[in-house]
């Protein structure tokens, strides 16, 4: 039986980030992925690198990760574009909350600025009239997530990481079993996102469906990733179905339009009522989009843990099984910090940020 220090199951952005960092630290690593590299939630994601300030643990992980992303800004296949994030306030009440958001970001060293309505329309002339202002976070960026997963895997393989293009069917006493019945021996790190319950049914995981629409090329229409300040209510609320204004300028001039969240649908079909609801929300903020052509609509599923924070660490009562899954809608941003947190714990090192909020033990179902 082939033996490794670590067998990573799943080659999405989280699994490949773990393979990259683990191999850089000198570990002998295998990665198991039957499908395309970065072909699950990674391929469906918008690729917005962003820090959300409303949960302290999530902010710490996102902020740590954003620092790590700086190493990759010049990698061509990642299409890194530091367009910044512009959170849009539609009411006086939303505008009034901006200073406390800026203070929370400043507390972790992230710079953000209050934008009055005059500056708002100077930055983004296509926004609908009547908006109150916003908050601009200049360091944030957009990337092409599957390109990052491939880049991370290429680096890892150059250091000797072995890719098994097979399905891991079970975790065994020694390691994992593959679908051709061969076994691999070593510690196991499960990074399979929504598919986590297949290998680790003791960890709660729900799939939260999202829709995205991409337009033809309209360069210069918008300049920042634009979100409504109410976005966090949709992202962090537990409503069965919600939409929020969230649009992104791609480097091609195309505009990527989100966002929707649904728990009740588990099929990948496009729901036109949901798309219509999402687009009506978008047109309220960007009426100029109404007359443009969309090229494609797709869906994806966000892996949602029991409490919305990823599971990062060792499973209790199981010395050789580790997990890095459940990043919901923030996994592109937090992939790099997640990999460090898990691998540093595996190596018995101190982690750069407090790892306790992500300890999978918090959520393991009592059997």
């Amino acid at each position, binding site marked *: 039986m082939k033996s490794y220090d670590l067998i990573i199951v799943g080659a999405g952005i989280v699994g490949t980030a773990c393979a990259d960092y683990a191999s850089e630290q000198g570990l002998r690593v295998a990665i198991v992925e039957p499908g395309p590299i970065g072909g699950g939630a990674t391929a469906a994601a918008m690729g917005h690198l962003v820090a959300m300030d409303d949960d302290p643990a999530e902010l710490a992980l996102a902020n740590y990760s954003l620092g790590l992303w700086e190493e990759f800004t010049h990698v061509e296949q990642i299409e890194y574009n530091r367009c910044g994030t512009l959170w849009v306030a539609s009411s006086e009440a939303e505008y009034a909350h901006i200073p406390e958001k800026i203070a929370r970001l400043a507390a972790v060293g992230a710079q953000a600025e209050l934008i009055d309505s005059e500056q708002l329309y100077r930055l983004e002339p296509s926004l609908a009239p009547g908006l109150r202002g916003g908050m601009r976070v200049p360091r944030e960026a957009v990337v092409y997530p599957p390109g990052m997963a491939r880049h991370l895997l290429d680096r890892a393989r150059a250091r000797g990481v072995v890719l098994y293009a097979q399905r891991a069917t079970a975790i065994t006493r020694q390691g994992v079993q593959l679908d051709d019945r061969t076994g691999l021996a070593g510690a196991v790190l499960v990074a399979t996102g929504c598919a986590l319950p297949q290998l680790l049914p003791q960890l709660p995981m729900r799939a939260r469906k999202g829709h995205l629409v991409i337009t*033809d*090329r*309209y360069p210069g229409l918008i300049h920042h990733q634009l979100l409504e300040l109410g976005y966090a209510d949709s992202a962090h609320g537990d409503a069965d179905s919600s939409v929020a204004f969230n649009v992104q300028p791609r480097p*091609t001039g195309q505009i990527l339009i989100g966002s929707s969240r649904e728990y009740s649908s588990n099929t990948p079909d496009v729901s036109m009522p949901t798309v219509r609801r999402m687009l009506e929300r978008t047109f309220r903020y960007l009426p100029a989009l109404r*007359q*443009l*052509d969309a090229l494609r609509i797709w869906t994806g599923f966000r892996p949602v843990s029991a409490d919305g924070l990823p599971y990062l660490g060792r499973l209790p009562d199981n010395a050789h099984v580790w997990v890095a899954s459940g990043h919901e809608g923030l996994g592109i941003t937090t992939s790099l910090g997640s990999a460090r947190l898990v691998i540093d714990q595996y190596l018995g090192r101190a982690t750069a940020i407090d790892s306790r909020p992500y300890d999978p033990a918090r959520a393991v179902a009592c059997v």
Partner: protein
Amino acid sequence: MTQVRIDINGQVLDVPAGISVAAAIARFRPSMRRSVSGQMRAPFCGMGICFECRVRIDGVAQQRACMTPVREGMQVITDG
């Protein structure tokens, strides 16, 4: 024949009413636009399927010239 006056790339032109923007452009230019990689492009299907004839019409980019009838005062930019 009724004529309408339109503007193609800043050039004011009188064309027959009822023709498509693609037909109007073809009266004066051999090609429609350049692709993202710089190649010359022209209408291929003429029925709204191939998207090779996209131009900017009255400020809105990526409009299919073959599917859009000319209108008095229309502003067309072929590489917009």
